[in-house]
């Protein structure tokens, strides 16, 4: 078993080193799909996070509770709901998003929106209350004060975005059910790993898993490095 594993890793390294076109196209597609999902989730998630962190209004606790609860939503459940919504006979079928990279991106963006909202709003709220008073007493307007508070939480917001991207990049349920794992169209790293493992192509699976892990860990490493410097 151990020898098989070592052999698989050896083959995986050769696959990556030789620049296998399919491995690279799957990797690029994964980056594109999850990158777009992260962008979309930031588009609506960050304003919601700002609203939750910087203002007080009725129902704030309810909204926060909703997003916290959604942090643990099973990706398969979300994938199934999206499949039903986007399928031809579904209410959103006219947009023809099922089995498209854009469909996966939208699905993943919904999956990671709670991460963006919860983590970013916590980061903004954790800024010392004194910073707000300081900005105000130096003559900042409400908007300028909010900007100063946001500036103080920049790294927390970046970490929220990175965590969201990593979640989207490594999820399987939405990509499989909304994307359909179509070769050269919607096949991404996680769906390929699942398929190739089922087919017994362990080396190919390990190659893709190594790439997946390298990208996720490198991103975290780079962010931590930049934060320190």
């Amino acid at each position, binding site marked *: 078993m151990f020898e098989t594993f070592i052999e698989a890793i050896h083959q995986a390294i050769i696959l990556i080193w030789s620049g296998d076109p399919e491995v690279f196209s799957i990797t690029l597609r994964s980056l594109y799909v999850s990158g777009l999902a992260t962008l979309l989730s930031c588009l609506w998630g960050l304003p919601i996070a700002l609203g939750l962190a910087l203002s007080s209004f009725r129902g704030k606790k309810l909204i926060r509770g909703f997003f916290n609860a959604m942090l643990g939503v099973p990706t398969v459940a979300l994938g199934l709901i999206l499949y039903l919504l986007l399928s031809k006979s579904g209410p959103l079928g006219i947009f023809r998003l099922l089995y498209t990279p854009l469909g996966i991106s939208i699905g993943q963006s919904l999956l990671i929106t709670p991460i963006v909202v919860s983590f970013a709003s916590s980061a903004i709220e954790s800024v010392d209350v004194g910073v707000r008073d*300081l900005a*105000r007493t130096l*003559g900042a307007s409400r908007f300028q004060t909010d900007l100063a508070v946001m500036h103080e939480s920049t790294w927390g917001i970046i970490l929220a975005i990175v965590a969201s991207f990593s979640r989207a990049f490594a999820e399987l349920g939405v990509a499989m059910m909304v994307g359909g794992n179509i070769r050269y169209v919607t096949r991404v790293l996680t769906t390929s790993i699942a398929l190739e493992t089922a087919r017994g192509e362990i080396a190919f699976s390990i190659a893709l898993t190594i790439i997946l892990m390298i990208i996720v860990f490198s991103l975290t490493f780079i962010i931590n490095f930049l934060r320190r410097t």
Partner: protein
Amino acid sequence: MSSHLHIEKIEKNYEDLKALNNLAFDAHQGQLISLVGANGSGKTTLLRIMAGLDFPNNGKIIFNGKELNIHDLRKIATLVFQKSIMFNTSVFKNVAFGLKVRGVDTKKIRDKVFDSLSSVSLQGFENKKANNLSGGDQQRVALARAFIIKPQILLLDEPTANLDPSNAIIVENTIKEILERKSCIIVMATHNLYQARRLSSFIAHLHYGRIIEFSKSEKFFAQPENKITQKFVSGELQF
């Protein structure tokens, strides 16, 4: 024209607690008013109201004949906090903040920041991270950041409370220099009676949210009228 500040019947309640009760005093440009009193006597609460950071429940703050609201106060007054709070950025950006939010030209900001830092003996500190400075240096940055915007009312909340004697002297000298320019009214909360004596034009003794003695610095120490103040000055007052 010399500026005039009139504090009229300020009250602040926290549920059943009267933090400030019917507070009133006057101050003129170039004067430093010290607020002295025990912890919880209302010094910081009054400074926060004067800085436009808290609302009073009653009373007015009148400056040059005009009643000020919270937004007016934030434009003309600035508060230096007891625990110096720094923006998580360079010393330069910290000191420049007040000018930047006022839309001052970048070139002017640069010149003023350099002047301001040299007046607190922090030349060469522009690019250092403010949060990495010692407590004394941070308090000097806080002072530079406050007076660079030329406030008409400068509020100081125990500015030397957490400093060692050498840093306390530097901060005190900076306050003296600001006083000599006679450009603003300074209201300073302090526990240090010697410092109050050295710097103040007038001293207000706060006791449970009330001003029980308000007199010229010399008179405050030589002949205080209030019996509690007499004990406070002589060090006999126990809480």
